[in-house]
């Protein structure tokens, strides 16, 4: 188990190309399960490959405990990696696949046999050790790939979207399996995914990346409840956070945004006073509800369509921003997750409510989160510092 430290790591493939990844500084604690989350092309796989030693960083330092590994080839780094398509040797049996790394390193036969046997038992692969990958199901192949990477007892375990080739049911099952295996082995793990449910359920901490930059590092709870900027707010959560760019003004009833489309209590005045007239307001869909009682926040919208998803319903609507009673294609979109027994007709005017604590404010120009005391999120947080 190793503690991994990355300092200002950059990767640029060609001199004229844009950097695939820039200024990435991270600490992965010993035994931690860190998830790199982001859309395609955000640089997360590049970062993983740099950790594995399959790519050289253009700049920056990578430390495994007190070892600077920038120049170390992959085989000396003690890294196990699971690829998206498993990358099992097709001409070898399950046993041979798992034993390959040990044989390549000249481990005695008896030790190989015992180690692979233990891993097979851990992964529940008894009975298929003499099968070739072609004869295995998707889930079994996944387990073999895990076993092959883990059997060498690596200091760092890397996984590149390992569940993306599995069907939904199996993915959920394997997710639990991964959590169990990590709990048992406590290997420092870096896991790449674009699936936020995997990230939120598996991670000790999540690193959200976009455009080659780290956008936020935090626990799943922090990422979800206090997104660092509008990208994280929109990307994490399914559906993502409602984000509305609105102008605010003080009225008799409180603070009106978008000509009365959104009403906030006066307690927000000190924060808003530090900001320009236009701000971005964010509310998670599940924090909006149909309620007729007295509440802090009111949202006026017109229903467009309504989905019943069994456990809950989902309202898609347009914010009534102009003060007039209609919405058009330019109106800010709204998604609300409502109770399963709710029903709203398309075209109906609806007033939704939310608790004041559900309100997130972002700077309209930079998209960066503004804390309720008015400070920028980046000014007051030190949680990314190398520890």
């Amino acid at each position: 188990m190793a503690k991994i430290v990355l300092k200002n790591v950059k990767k640029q493939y060609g001199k004229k190309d844009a950097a695939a990844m820039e200024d990435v500084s991270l600490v992965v604690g010993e035994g931690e399960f860190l998830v790199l989350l982001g859309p395609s092309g955000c640089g997360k796989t590049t970062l993983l490959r740099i950790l594995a030693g399959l790519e050289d960083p253009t700049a920056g330092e990578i430390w495994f405990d007190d070892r600077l590994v920038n120049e170390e080839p992959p085989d000396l780094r003690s890294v196990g990696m699971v690829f998206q398509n498993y990358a099992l040797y097709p001409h070898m049996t399950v046993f041979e696949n798992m034993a390959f790394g040990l044989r390549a390193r000249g481990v005695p036969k008896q030790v190989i046999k015992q180690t692979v046997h233990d891993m097979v038992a851990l992964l529940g692969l008894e009975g298929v050790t003499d099968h070739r990958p072609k004869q295995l199901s998707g889930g079994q192949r996944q387990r073999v790939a895990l076993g092959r990477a883990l059997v060498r007892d690596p200091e760092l375990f890397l996984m590149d979207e390992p569940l993306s080739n599995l069907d939904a049911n199996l993915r959920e099952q394997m997710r639990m399996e991964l959590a169990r295996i990590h709990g048992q082995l406590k290997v420092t793990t870096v896991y790449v995914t674009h699936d936020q449910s995997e990230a939120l359920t598996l991670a000790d901490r999540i690193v959200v990346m976009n455009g080659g930059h780290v956008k936020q590092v935090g626990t799943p709870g922090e990422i979800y409840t206090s997104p660092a900027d509008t990208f994280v707010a929109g990307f994490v959560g399914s559906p993502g956070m409602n984000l509305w760019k609105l102008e605010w003004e003080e009225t008799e009833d409180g603070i009106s945004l978008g000509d009365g489309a959104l009403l906030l209590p006066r307690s927000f005045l000190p924060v808003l006073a530090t900001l320009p007239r236009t701000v971005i307001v964010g509310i998670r869909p599940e924090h909006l509800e149909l309620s007729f009682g007295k509440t802090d926040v009111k949202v006026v919208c017109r229903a467009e369509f309504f989905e019943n998803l069994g456990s809950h319903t989902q309202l898609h609507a347009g914010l009534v921003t102009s003060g007039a009673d209609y919405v058009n294609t330019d109106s800010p979109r709204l998604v609300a997750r409502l109770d399963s027994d709710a029903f709203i007709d398309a075209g109906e005017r609806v007033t939704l409510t939310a608790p004041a604590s559900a309100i997130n404010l972002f700077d309209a120009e930079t998209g960066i989160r503004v804390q309720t005391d008015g400070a920028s999120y980046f000014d007051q947080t030190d949680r990314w510092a190398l520890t």
Partner: protein
Amino acid sequence: MTITTAGTSHEGRTVYTASGEYTGKTSVKSRRRSILPVRFHRLRDRLIAYGLMLPATSVFVMFFYVPAAYMLYISFFHWGVLSSATNFVGLANFRTLLNQPLFLHSLLTSLYYTLVMIPATVLLSLGIALLLKEAITRRKRGAGIWRGAVFLPHVTPVLATSIIWVWIFNPQFGLANFVLTHLGLPALGWLESVHWALPAVIIDSLWHSLGLYVIIFLAGLSTVPRDLLEVARLDGAKKYYTFRRIIWPLISPTTFFVTLLATINSWQAFSQIYAMTGGPHGGAGGPAYATTTDALLVYQTAFVYEHFSLAAAMSVVLFGIIMTLTLIQKWISDRIVFYR
């Protein structure tokens, strides 16, 4: 009822069937199809398929199967160019062959040629392909030029390259002896030596044919997924270990194909031997029949000595040998070649 696609003015250009189901086909076609019986369409499809195959098939039949069948036929006759094959002699031509030391000698020469050519072809072409692949993967400058350079001899006519090699192997003024003597080694007689004539021909053949096999191996190597090689690196496998345990098994179908092709081409080697050993060096196949392979002997028997039926019998034997070797290779490949 047919529903016209929005914005399309063509008559009958629709994407729905009469029942309103989406098909993605134009209704003109579906309406026509519904009128004619299914059997007609099947027949028409077959006729089109056979029609498309006809040009290639007829050329193949005319220049391969018919001559091959006729060759088998005349091997049982006493046959001359100007006489018809009426004089049936049974297996006499084959008996004559068995009593001809030159024929047996030519078979051994071909065997020697083949046994050297196959491993040399596989080792050299695979080696060059691996180097080229490495250069291409690492985006080394000039990798494309090297690939072209390796392939170039193969697209040059064999007669032209053979003439160059005749100069190189000239015992007095040739480059080969120049290099050998500068390395402190004795000069060789090459094409004028009974011992070195065939190796000289083999060197020319290798040089000429390698390009094709290198390209085939390059194609084979490109089918080995990069992920597997990366996993092997992470697993701690060194280059040779990765080659032996991952690359070699995964390219075994390519290796088998190259071996098969090299075997067939070796047993049929003719042009380079004819070009290199004919002319000022005396009759082709010399000196002292040292380079008389069976393909050359077939040619000489038929067109120099005009024993066509005997040459036909030789060809039948040659066909039998190549067929047997191919079947043996196939049998072996079924056991050791790994197909993904």
